[in-house]
């Protein structure tokens, strides 16, 4: 089996990052060539299989580390004439390395513990670097701003025509450009499939410094001319025209228009803001089009354009903001109906893309810090135990004239070697972890962020590793070196600092329990939240429903009658399929992420601020409520007599809309009208009220909705919804039925899904998050248990003689056991109290991730405290019991 070039690239990136160990001058002179040579060796090795590749890569890493470190030693030596402290310390490090190699069990335990903690830390640091510190991999990112309107935290986009107004009325910006990602659509040639498109204005790709892989970006005149052109992503191009295809004026048909491909962009290209009002579920685009081709290009009422600006050199965000405020006031005068009272602001683009994720990253850092500290506490205990065993050796050294500094240096050197090994292993593990990260976690990052372990992350990890070395090594080193002379004189006598060591061990237990409790509370809350979320009633039936979408592109369906005829025919034929109970159609499925927001005006009930109420409009056929299982709570459902030529135009509202529009009164027979593209629509009479549905995700409350009959609003894409006992078997017959009516109409095969799949997707991210946090909690619990076990084992081993004396004097085994356990459980209790306080303080960070559970949920706090106490009791009981089983005679023998 061979290894792919991706693995070789990953290894090369790691190699490049590890170059930091070399002295800067050496790195500057040869770093690039060394990396190239390493890559060439890897590439050669890949053809010989995985094992050969791994051997070559590992040999390269270890060679780099040895040579780099020894080059550094040399530099240090050259710089100091006498053997300095540093040179001395480096000698100690070598000695320590040799000593540790002879004790592989101890060394491995410590290195693995530290590596696990440091791997998690490195991964979290990589996320911090990619998502929060450098989320915009574009030139001069600090000059990029997002221009938004409205007062919500991150504002709302603009209707496309305002782009020209913003350009005309500002001087703060080098460029102002707009884009709109994540539009669905149908490709009809060279083959039929659903695609995602992104519309860009002139200057949008240029402002972000995007360079095409092949061909070119749009020319300025192509944003005006009627001849349609497109850019496509590399993976999309390859899937359409084959792996080996080159760009050569290929043509595609999209949205009913034939267009020429003029350039190919990276498949990884993400606009910095992915979610848009038309489709909040971010998807990378297959096709990039001039904004002119967007249906809303000239519509002043539909805000679909994200606007970004590049500030002129020397202009601040505040300057631009002041200018935009003036522009907003003028626009409000000119277009009172749309911009009235709306403010326009400039927000640093970095804040817009990284802001929403900051608290999550902080949470992740907090969690990994807890884990790392628990690991450090365990390691400190090991170091302490081992150092105690070496007391005699140290005493001899001290009496031979070693100064205290020398002794500390020697003891610290071991921690340095161990944490260095831990760091290298941790970084390697983190690189692997990131490669294996669930896509859903990556999806939560800012879309343009690039998640890799670069030199900055490696350097930060090295600093953290060094701090670990200081943390786990310093106290034992100081304590033991202080003791050494006394021990040299006093033989096996106990010294005062035994008490200090005991206090340290007690502190370790308290800290470990407190940290583990914090992680467990987080895990418990996430689990409870997920459980609540998975039991939310979405407001419709999930199991027995199957859906499949069609889109009416092209001239044949330009007329509403043609679309109506197709839908009527299809609903009739689908209802007749074996196994189908009811068939209906809707324009936007619940939970699909697609929604149509419009303003409504209720007759005789003007809103306080004169602005229309925003509702979600859904277009449905008569049997829809029946098919998907939405209850009609008042009035009636749509019926066949609600025809396109009826005088009586009708609508149905959900309960949320009924509450908003009728303010407690009866909404039935009141009239409302929708504010559509071309102005207000006809008055509609409310004939029914239906139950609320979770259209926007299970965690989001139901929004006001207005349903209108398809016969009176024949929109351009519909999703057929079938109620059946066997929804999983319907894909093929449904497609065949639709193709039988019109063989050329695109049936969106990738839109076919049982409704349970959509609900499952809505739960997927919370599920991954909960699983992630729970894995952390489980590891923390295990580490804390191991730590407590270790401390108690060590303590009772030291107390052997005391226990022996007690039992020889007639103490009962049970009393001795209780005495040991009581002391440990007091410590555990203190740790739990501390942890509860800490978790209470940190819970604020969790609040936004929780659903239906308070961040200070008493049941969760009590439950995990109890769990931790029980685990701790068992961990302490095992070694304590063993200690009390010994024969007093054996225990009393001199050591």
């Amino acid at each position, binding site marked *: 089996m061979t290894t792919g070039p991706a693995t070789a690239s990953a290894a090369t990136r790691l190699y490049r990052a590890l170059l930091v160990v070399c002295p800067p001058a*050496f790195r500057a*002179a040869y770093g*690039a060539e*060394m990396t190239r040579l390493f890559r*060439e060796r890897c590439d050669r090795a890949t053809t010989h299989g995985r094992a050969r590749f791994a051997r070559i890569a590992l040999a*390269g890493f270890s060679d780099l580390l*040895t*040579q780099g470190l020894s080059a550094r030693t040399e530099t240090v030596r050259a710089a100091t004439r006498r053997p300095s402290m540093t040179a001395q310390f480096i000698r100690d490090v070598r000695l320590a390395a040799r000593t540790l190699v002879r004790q592989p069990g101890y060394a491995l335990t410590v290195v693995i513990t530290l590596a696990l903690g440091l791997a998690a830390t490195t991964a979290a640091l990589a996320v911090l670097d990619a998502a929060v510190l450098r989320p915009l991999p574009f030139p001069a990112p600090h000059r990029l701003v997002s221009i938004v309107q409205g007062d919500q935290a991150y504002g709302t986009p603009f209707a496309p025509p305002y782009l020209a107004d913003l350009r005309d009325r500002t001087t703060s910006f080098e460029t102002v450009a707009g884009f709109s990602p994540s539009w669905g659509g149908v490709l009809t040639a060279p083959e039929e499939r659903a695609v995602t498109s992104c519309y860009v204005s002139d200057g949008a790709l240029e402002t972000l410094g995007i360079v095409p892989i092949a061909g070119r970006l749009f020319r300025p005149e192509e944003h005006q001319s009627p001849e349609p052109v497109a850019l496509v992503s590399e993976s999309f191009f390859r899937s359409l025209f084959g792996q080996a295809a080159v760009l050569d004026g290929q043509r595609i048909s999209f949205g009913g228009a034939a267009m020429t491909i003029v350039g190919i962009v990276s498949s990884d290209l993400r606009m910095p803001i992915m979610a848009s009002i038309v489709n909040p579920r971010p998807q990378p685009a297959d096709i990039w089009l001039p904004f002119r081709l967007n249906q809303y290009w000239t519509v002043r009422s539909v805000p679909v354009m994200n606007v970004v600006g590049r500030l002129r050199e020397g202009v601040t965000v505040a300057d631009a903001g002041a200018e935009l405020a003036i522009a907003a006031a003028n626009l409000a005068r000119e277009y009172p109906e749309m911009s009235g009272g709306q403010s326009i602001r400039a927000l640093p683009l970095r804040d817009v893309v990284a802001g929403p994720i900051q608290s999550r990253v902080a949470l992740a850092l907090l969690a990994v810090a807890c884990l790392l500290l628990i690991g450090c506490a365990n390691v400190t205990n090991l170091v302490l135990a081992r150092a105690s065993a070496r007391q005699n050796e140290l005493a001899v050294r001290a009496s031979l004239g070693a100064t205290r500094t020398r002794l500390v240096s020697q003891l610290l050197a071991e921690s340095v070697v161990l944490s260095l090994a831990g760091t290298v292993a941790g970084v390697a593990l983190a690189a692997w972890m990131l490669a294996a990260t669930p896509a859903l976690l990556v999806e939560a990052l800012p879309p343009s962020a690039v998640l890799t372990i670069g030199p900055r992350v490696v350097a930060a990890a090295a600093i953290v590793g060094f701090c670990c070395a200081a943390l786990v090594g310093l106290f034992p080193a100081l304590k033991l070196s202080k003791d050494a002379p006394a021990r040299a004189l006093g033989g096996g006598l106990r010294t005062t600092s035994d008490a200090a060591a005991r206090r340290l061990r007690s502190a370790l237990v308290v800290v470990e329990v407190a940290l583990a409790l914090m992680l467990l509370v987080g895990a418990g809350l996430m689990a409870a939240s997920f459980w609540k979320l998975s039991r939310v009633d979405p407001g419709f039936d999930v199991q027995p429903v199957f859906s499949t979408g069609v889109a009416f592109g092209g001239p044949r369906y330009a007329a509403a009658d043609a679309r109506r005829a197709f839908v009527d025919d299809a609903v009739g034929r689908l209802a007749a399929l074996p196994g189908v109970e009811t068939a209906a159609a809707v324009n936007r499925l619940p939970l699909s992420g697609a929604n149509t927001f419009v303003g409504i005006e209720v007759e005789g009930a003007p809103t306080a601020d004169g602005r229309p109420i925003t509702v979600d409009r859904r277009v449905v056929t008569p049997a829809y409520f029946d098919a998907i299982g939405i209850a009609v709570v008042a009035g009636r459902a749509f019926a066949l007599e609600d025809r396109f030529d009826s005088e009586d135009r009708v609508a149905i509202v959900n309960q949320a809309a009924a509450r908003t529009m009728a303010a407690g009164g009866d909404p039935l027979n009141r009239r409302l009208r929708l504010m559509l593209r071309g102005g207000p629509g006809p008055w509609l009479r409310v004939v029914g009220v239906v139950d609320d549905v979770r259209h926007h995700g299970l965690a989001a409350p139901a929004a006001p909705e207005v349903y209108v009959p398809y016969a009176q609003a024949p929109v351009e894409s519909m999703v057929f919804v079938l109620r059946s006992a066997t929804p999983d078997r319907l894909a093929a017959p449904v497609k065949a039925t639709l193709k039988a009516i019109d063989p050329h109409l695109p049936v969106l095969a990738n839109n076919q899904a049982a409704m349970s799949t959509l609900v499952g997707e809505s739960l997927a991210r919370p599920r991954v998050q909960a699983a992630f946090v729970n894995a952390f909690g489980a590891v923390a619990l295990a580490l804390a248990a191991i730590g407590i076990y270790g401390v108690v084992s060590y303590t009772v081993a030291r107390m052997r003689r005391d226990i022996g004396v007690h039992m020889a004097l007639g103490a009962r085994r049970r009393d001795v056991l209780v005495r040991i356990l009581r002391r440990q459980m007091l410590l555990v209790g203190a740790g739990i109290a501390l942890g509860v306080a800490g978790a209470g303080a940190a819970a604020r960070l969790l609040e936004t991730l929780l659903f239906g559970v308070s961040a200070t949920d008493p049941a969760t706090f009590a439950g995990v405290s109890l769990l931790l106490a029980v685990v701790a009791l068992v961990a302490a009981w095992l070694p304590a019991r063993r200690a009390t089983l010994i024969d007093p005679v054996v225990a009393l023998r001199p050591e």
Partner: protein
Amino acid sequence: MTDRDLLSFLPLTPVAFEILLALGDGERHGYDVMLAIETRTGGRLSPNPGTLYRAIDRLVAEGLIDVRERQADRGEPRRFFRLSKLGTRVAAAEVERLSDQVAAARGMRLLRRAGRP
């Protein structure tokens, strides 16, 4: 420089000596040096990048080889290395030292006793 000064460079490390040998027939860049070493030793010696460039760095610092940055056939400019006058003399001195040792070993019939021709 006297012969005595030359001796202060000796003995060369195996990798350093191989690098000087590889540069014996002209200018090469790093990758080329590695290939030359691999070819000459039949793959027994294939220095890792760290070892190779560290040795090169030392040889440059000691003035045994010269560096020149030059456009390769394609891609970015690469560093090319070639033997300096001093380097040639040191390499020769090392060869003398080694052949002296080899001659001594032959005289003692070491090889034959070890069962080798």
